[in-house]
């Protein structure tokens, strides 16, 4: 890739949830039906770690047993315990522990007791960092932040906490307030492709007719290349018609998220985060 900066790879666990009708989960691993050629492929914790070892990212993720947040019943408990058994297999299979940081992923659905068991188990393995998984799947916000709060309280203070699949700016701010450090989400670029720009006031729908005569930049406080050069009106004419429209709005949205991160970071350092 010729990418000189930090890199993180995921384990493939999320695909279990997003492609569930194609997956069969057993103790051995996950059998997918390959969307490319229809052939069955088995992904074990060992396979996942081996592939991630080859890719060579700075942070790699354990293969966890992920269930939808809306799932209830014994499946949630089964997934949590299996995640703990799989973390040991991941640790054993990890061939580059001094170059790549293996993060464990806390599961347990929305059940505080299950989450506690998982937290305890993962913390005992003394991993370089921890992710809070199994969220951002349609649960209510109240349930969501409670789980995040519980997890950040139960994870070591001196290790990174990564909330997976979070990308709405508001969610990032709330999770940061609760003690999380890292996030990933397709939201900024996906929403860009649908013609929405992330701005300080919220979400700007560029497809709206009012944008056709709005000659301001996307965000007056943004210093990115797109905001320096182009108006909302011009972007309005591009967004659903040219690939370049998606490219430019994606560029701005990513800039926006990076600025958000910088603001969170500096406001904490300067002791003015609550404001």
């Amino acid at each position: 890739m010729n990418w000189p900066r930090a890199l993180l790879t995921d384990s493939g666990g999320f695909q279990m949830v997003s492609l569930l009708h194609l997956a069969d989960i057993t103790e051995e691993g996950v059998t997918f039906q390959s969307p490319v050629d229809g052939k069955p492929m088995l992904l074990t914790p060992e396979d996942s770690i081996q592939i991630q070892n080859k890719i060579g990212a700075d942070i790699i993720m354990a293969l966890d047993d992920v269930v939808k947040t809306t799932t209830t019943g014994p499946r949630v408990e089964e997934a949590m315990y299996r995640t703990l058994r799989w973390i040991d297999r991941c640790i054993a299979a990890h061939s580059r522990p001094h170059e790549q940081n293996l993060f464990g992923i806390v599961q347990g659905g929305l059940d505080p007791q299950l989450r506690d068991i998982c937290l305890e188990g993962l913390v005992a393995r003394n991993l370089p960092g921890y992710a809070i998984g199994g969220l951002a799947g349609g649960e209510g916000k109240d349930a969501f932040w409670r789980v995040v709060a519980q997890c950040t309280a139960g994870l070591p203070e001196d290790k990174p906490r990564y909330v997976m699949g979070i990308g709405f700016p508001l969610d990032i701010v709330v999770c940061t307030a609760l003690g999380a450090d890292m996030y990933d989400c397709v939201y900024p670029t996906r929403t860009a492709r649908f013609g929405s720009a992330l701005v300080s006031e919220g979400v700007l729908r560029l497809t709206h007719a009012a944008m056709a005569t709005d000659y301001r930049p996307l965000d007056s406080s943004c210093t990115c290349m797109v905001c320096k050069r182009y108006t909302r009106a011009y972007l309005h004419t591009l967004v659903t018609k040219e690939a370049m429209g998606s490219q430019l709005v994606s560029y701005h949205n990513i800039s926006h998220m990076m600025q958000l991160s910088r603001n969170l970071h500096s406001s904490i350092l300067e002791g003015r985060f609550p404001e």
Partner: protein
Amino acid sequence: MEFTVRACSGHGRVGSLRLASGLEFETPSLLMITRRGLPVVIPPEMLMDLHPDSRACQFTPMHFLEDPLAAVVAKAGGVHKLASLTGFAMVAVARDSLGNEIAGEEASNLGASFETSSGRRIVGLEKYMEVVNACKPDLWVSLPDEVPHWVPEKRNRESVDHTSQWLDHCLSLQHAEHGNRCLGVVVGAGSLEERARSAEQAATRNVAGFSLAGFGLGEDVAQRGFHLEVAIAKLPNDKLRHVCGLGSPEEVLQAVGAGIDLLDSTYPYMLTKECLAMTFPLKMEVPLRNADRDMQPTPDHGVASGFSLAKVNLRSATYGGGRIDETPLVTGCKCYTCKRHTKVYINQLLNSNETLAQTLLEIHNTYHYLEFFKAIRESIKADKFHEFRTWFTSQRQELGVLSLGNIPRVVSCN
């Protein structure tokens, strides 16, 4: 605007073009394609540094006919400011090279038929010039009544008459303060007499140059050569000549050989769309090695040198499976893509359906084509254009490359 012929080789010539904005460049020159003012996939902030010659673009006024874009470009103060491409030459060409083919449909006295964002419609003179004036291009072509060579004689004659009348009308509607920026269109399609007549009429008008139209529409290559010759023979030597509709390497060489100075070409983009990288050799001093001649060139062959083939198919399974080709698209190429990435990486991007692949390919293909134009200019300056053209076309034939007589239809590679 100033245009001066600096060197000749046969009918081919190198010129220097200095625009009113102060921007100067050498011709023959490639105009890069834009849509609604911006490149199709190349990030606009990368355009300036893409290549020393990546300074000139074409755009289609027909994209700017309707609101809201019509109002937006007027309010912005022209297409340079709109697209943030000050420092570039923006040339307005009526024909949309990425769009539909010209069918020679009926035109009225008031305008010709064009594809716009609201479908096919007649575009009249007032409207056309309103858009041209709002866009403030560095050069613009007059409204053409362009027809393919197979139309009946009567329609062809009519197209010559229309085009000439519309040239006068356009000139009367141009903004005086912009000075002379008009490229008068020359048509004539299937008849050499009509072609000559069209050129004669345009030649007497007070224009900055000429735009030869009606090519790239399935005409016979030899016929095209005659048409170019006949038209150019009637045009003043010291004015710019543009041709639209021609863009493949062979077409460029034919046009330059006849005396053309400016071409807008979709050739790089056509290759990108088909997941091909442009790799043809540019220097005739480097002989084809015997080993290369013996090699069976197939599109799947990922050879390290890049010299042996005109195009490399980046979708080939050869990269992922057996051989891992960690060489750049063209060894020694100084473009952004070749300095950073390998064939196998681009293959991986294509197989993952990542749009980055198109961006990287388009950057390379555009760079390579600009290098091609530079090689053409160098050969003219050395008075070796004919040799260069002969060498180029023969090595393409030797490699079994299908000569793109006309630019193929766009084929999606997904």
